[in-house]
Structures are given as C-alpha cells and as structure tokens.
C-alpha cells in the first residue's frame, strides 16, 4: 500500500495532475442536481466509449473495400468467435447513443439549461447531435449491403437537388461518378477518423464548459434567470446548498451508465447484429431498401410530401431546423427555466415527439409503397368470389394479373398505396369505375392502354360486386330516369 502511494507520488511529481483532477471532481454542485434526471449526458459519453472500443475491435476484421466489405461482415457474423456479438454491441450501441443524446437534449431543453450563461454549451450540444447522426448514417453505409447501397443512392439524389452545385456535391460525396469502391473508402474515413475526431473535440469543449460554468441548477418555478444577477445567485446557491460532485452526485451517473451498457449488451445478445442484408450488387433490383431506425421518419416525410414541395423542403428544412436550434439560447436566454412555467416549450417537445413518432410508425409498414408481390402472392379472399358469375371471376383474374393488388388491398391483404377496395362499389358507380380504371387520376396510373375492352368490362363487373351485404352498390340516378 505504501509502495502504491509512493508510486503515485512519483508520477504526480512529474505529471502534476492530481490537484486539478481533485478540484474538478470535487467541485460543488447544487444538491438537487444529484438527480436521476441529470444522468443522460454521462450515459451518452459512456455509450460513446463503448462505440470507440467495439469500433476498434470491428476494424480488426472489417475490410473497407466495396468488393470485400460484405464478405468481411459475414465472416464477423459467422466465422470469427463472438464477432457477431461485437457487431451487435456496436449496432445497438449506435441506436442507444442516438436515443440517449435525444433524451439528454429534451431534458436540457425542458430544464432551461441552455439559458445564460450556458448558450455555447447548448450550441456545442447541437453540433454533438449532428455528428452523432453523422456517425449513425456513415455507420449504416459501412454495413455495406443493399440497404447501404441504395441508401447512398437516396443521399446522392437528395444532394443533387442543391441548386447549381448539385452534380459536384454528388461526385464529392460518392468519390466518383457512381456508388463504388471510392464511396465506401471515403465513408470509412469519415466514420473512423473525421467524425469521431470532431465528436471527441466537441465532447471535450462541452465537458469543459460544464465544469467551468457549473451544472444547471434544478429549475424552480419563479426563479428567473437575469444576465446581471445569475452568476452571483448560482455561486451563492452552490455555497449555501452545494455538495461535491464526487461522491455526492456521481453514484447515480455510475449506476445509470452500468444499466445502459447492460441494456445494450442484452439487446445485442437477444436481437443479434443488424444485417448485413443482401450483397451490394446493383444488378440485383429485387430489393426493398429501408433506412435505419433513426432515419425512418425522413423516409416517411419523403414519401408523403407533395412532389413540388419536396426539393424546397429538403433544402430549406434542415437550415431552418438547425438554425432554430442554434438560435434558441439567444432568443430565450433569460427568464423562467422551469418547464412548469413554459407551456410552449412543453408543447413543442410533445409536438415534435408525436410528429417524429407518427412518421416513424408509418415508415415501419410504409403504406405508400406498392407491395411488389401481392398480385401473385395474396389470393383473392373466397368471400369476394362466392356466388359470382363467370364474367366477374374473370374480372378477379384481371384484378390480380394486372397487379391492381400491389396498390389496393382486398380483405386486408395487398398494397395500401391506393384505397382498399372491399367496398369500392358503394363509392363509385359503374361509369365512374370505368373512368377511373381507364384514365387513372388521383395518383393512380391510367390503365387504358394496358387493358382490352373485354378485360375492362370483366374487371369493372368484378369491382361492382365489392360492396357489403345489405348495402347496395352506388347507382347513377340519371340512368333510372332514362329507364336504363
């Protein structure tokens, strides 16, 4: 023991770090901040450390070459002892990190921690969110499978919409004219060197400011932040009602960090690694690319925006969102911190959460995408064929054979791009059905050129049978007048 302390002294004579470290960890924090609400920042840092370690381990095997990456991931999954577990830890760690960073941001926003004098801490935090998302996207690219390949295509298509510089931005992003070896290499450099470098730099700044400015005190309704008086009030608070960060508050951080790492490991063991999906061969076009979880909302937005709104939304949206986040501490740098006195802040968080949640939920089953195999894979339910004529059955065949089912469901199976047709005859008369089939419209292609008159007749005869028992099909009243 004495030897150990002498060894410690020997090092400290040379490094002289013990005093500043002790000062940093024992700095007084307001007592009420030793709270379970204040553990998310340290948890995000812990998961980032896990990502660093597992990322380095993956680099022992991973080959950043468009020809080899996919096979090296297969080797990790199947050949190398516990390679699957390290991949799963890294993949789940990524999801946890994005989630915890978002939770941390919401907590900081609702507790008013971005207000004077912590404006710059918040701004660096916004950059930390952006680089975290950058890590998530570039990591998805390194899992070089079909989703990664076509995800890059989507990224390039978005980048190409930048006015004037579009094509140059695309080539800069891809490292050439197509998605290929050069693309993967530069995303590897981004994911492994550039973005982590930025992330570590921003984390250091962020932590330094937390130490220098002190942790945000527990917001009390009615305790107003004023630039002139805040600093002295904060110091008085830490003096009167403060406690050293270590050990008074740190034990909660430690416990939560342990729980989070255990949760990542549990997900990794239970759910396993993410992909890789199919081989990144652009000639295999039987694929349904989907982005990773935290970009699903964007996938939904891109499907649901009207076409004319899309480019402006893609180019202006990010500027407005990021600009708004950066300006926030300057727009409301003083005043109430407590969320109990900030209804607009609470409503904003709820609105954003519900919006993102709804888009993510929609993207999980993608009702806007045709179901490519419904026409040959989903049979017409028998009840729709019961007691039908030969012509109507012929129409049901046309309905399947012409892929109507890819976009229209019957009996809850089939695409949801167009309306379900279980009771279409109640909504449309015979003439309206014929017109809709032949001319399309309302986002439906026109089938006039692809249906013979006989096929159209049969199809419409079948569609006219699609109404609930006891509810008659729609009729054109003018025909009754004419006695037809």
């Amino acid at each position: 023991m004495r030897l150990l302390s002498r060894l410690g002294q020997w090092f400290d004579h040379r490094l002289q770090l013990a005093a500043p470290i002790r000062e940093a960890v024992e700095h007084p924090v307001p007592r009420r901040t030793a709270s379970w609400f204040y553990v998310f920042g340290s948890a995000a840092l812990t998961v980032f450390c896990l990502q660093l370690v597992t990322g380095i381990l993956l680099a022992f095997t991973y080959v950043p070459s468009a020809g080899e990456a996919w096979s090296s991931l297969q080797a990790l999954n199947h050949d190398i002892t516990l390679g699957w577990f390290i991949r799963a830890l890294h993949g789940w760690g990524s999801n946890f990190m994005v989630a915890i960073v978002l939770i941390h941001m919401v907590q900081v926003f609702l507790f008013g921690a971005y207000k004077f004098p912590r404006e710059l801490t918040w701004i660096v935090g916004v950059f930390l969110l952006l680089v975290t998302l950058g890590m998530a996207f570039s990591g998805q690219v390194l899992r070089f499978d079909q989703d990664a390949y076509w995800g890059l295509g989507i990224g390039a298509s978005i980048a190409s919409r930048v006015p004037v510089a579009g094509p140059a931005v695309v080539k800069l992003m891809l490292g050439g004219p197509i998605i290929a070896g050069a693309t993967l290499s530069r995303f590897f450099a981004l994911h492994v060197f550039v973005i982590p470098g930025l992330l570590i730099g921003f984390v250091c700044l962020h932590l330094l400011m937390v130490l220098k400015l002190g942790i945000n005190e527990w917001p009390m309704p009615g305790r107003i932040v004023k630039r002139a008086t805040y600093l002295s009030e904060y110091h008085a608070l830490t003096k009167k009602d403060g406690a050293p960060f270590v050990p008074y508050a740190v034990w909660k951080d430690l416990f939560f960090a342990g729980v989070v790492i255990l949760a990542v490991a549990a997900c990794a063991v239970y759910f396993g690694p993410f992909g890789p999906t199919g081989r990144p061969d652009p000639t295999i076009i039987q694929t349904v690319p989907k982005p990773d979880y935290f970009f699903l909302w964007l996938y939904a937005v891109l499907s649901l925006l009207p076409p004319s709104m899309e480019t402006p939304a893609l180019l202006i949206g990010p500027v407005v969102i990021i600009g708004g986040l950066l300006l926030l501490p300057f727009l409301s740098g003083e005043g109430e911190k407590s969320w109990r006195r900030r209804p607009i802040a609470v409503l904003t968080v709820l609105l954003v959460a519900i919006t993102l949640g709804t888009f993510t939920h929609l993207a999980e089953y993608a009702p806007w995408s045709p179901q490519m195999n419904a026409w040959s894979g989903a049979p017409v339910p028998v009840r729709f064929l019961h007691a039908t004529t030969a012509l109507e059955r012929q129409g049901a065949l046309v309905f399947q054979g012409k892929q109507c089912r890819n976009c229209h469901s019957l009996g809850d199976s089939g695409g949801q791009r167009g309306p379900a047709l279980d009771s279409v005859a109640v909504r449309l008369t015979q003439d309206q059905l014929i017109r809709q089939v032949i001319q399309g419209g309302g986002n439906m292609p026109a089938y006039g050129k692809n249906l013979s008159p006989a096929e159209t007749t049969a199809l419409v005869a079948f569609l006219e049978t699609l109404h609930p028992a006891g509810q008659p099909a729609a009729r054109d009243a003018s025909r009754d007048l004419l006695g037809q």
Partner: protein
Amino acid sequence: MTPNETNLSRRGLFMKLGILFNGFVAAALAVPIGRFLLSSITRGRANGYLSWVSLGDVDKFPEGETRLATFRNPLVMPTDGKTADTACWVRRVAGDQFQVFAVNCAHLGCPVRWFPQSGLFMCPCHGGAYYRDGSRASGPPERGLFEYPYKVENGLITIQAGEMPTPGPNALMRKESPCGCSPA
C-alpha cells in the same frame, strides 16, 4: 524608445514573420490537397465520365418487350467489386428503335421494377410508377425515368453511360421521356 521595447518588437517581428512563413507553406500545401479532395469533380469535367458501352446483340431484346440488361461501368477501380456492375431496362419499341432506361427512380434513385402485365415500372421505396415509355404515371417523381442515349450499329446496341443519374436540376439525362428517337 528603450532598448527593452526595441528587443520586444524585434522578437515580435520575427514571430510575425514566422506566422507569415507558415501561412505561405500552408497555402502552398493547400493547393495540392484541395485538388486531391476535389479530384472526383474535376476529373469528370476534364475527361467526362461518359463513354459508349455495349449491351450486346439487339436480338437479345424482343420487339415490344422490356428486358433487364447489365453492363460494367466504363470507369472501374480495383476495389469496386460488384458495385461497378449496373443494370438498365431496355425497351425495344420496334426494329432499331429502343428506349434504355436507368433503373434508378427519378424520385430518389431506388431501383424500379418492370411489370409487363400492367405495363408499369414500380418503385419499392416511395411508390413512384411509370408507364412503359418511361413517362411518369403516379407517385412522388416529378419527371419520367432517366434515358440513356443509345445507338445501334452492326446489330449491337450501345449506350452512353458512366454516371449514376440523379434528379437534380442540373443532372445528366435531363431529357424527358418519352422520346422514341435516337439522340445519338
């Protein structure tokens, strides 16, 4: 002026000169580094990425039908693997009259699939659909499918390719479908 102040300004001058010198060195190095970083843009400007690539015998493509064809990208790097292979849809309208479409949807680049029964190209991502001549049928795309310029010589069909088509305002292959003509 006391000697002390003279000394200080002399040191100060050397420091400023040192900063200036390093600035020159940095600027001199920035030029090649910048050129290296932007090479994927400038290379395309200087030589162009496009060349004529053969899709093979025209007889592989029956009249009135649309078939998937593949070609190797004209510019290949050793690490490209399968990613340099590219697919395209070849529609033989009649005789030597063709339309060659990129598989990339004009919305966000996902691979469209051809359904001969309904005469439609459908995109699995956001639900874009196109008619057999490549014109927009429905969904989020703002235009028809991208078409490669083609020519037919000695019974072989070749297309001008080499760049992934993207939908931006200055993108290549802006020509709106349908065309039905040989632009070559």
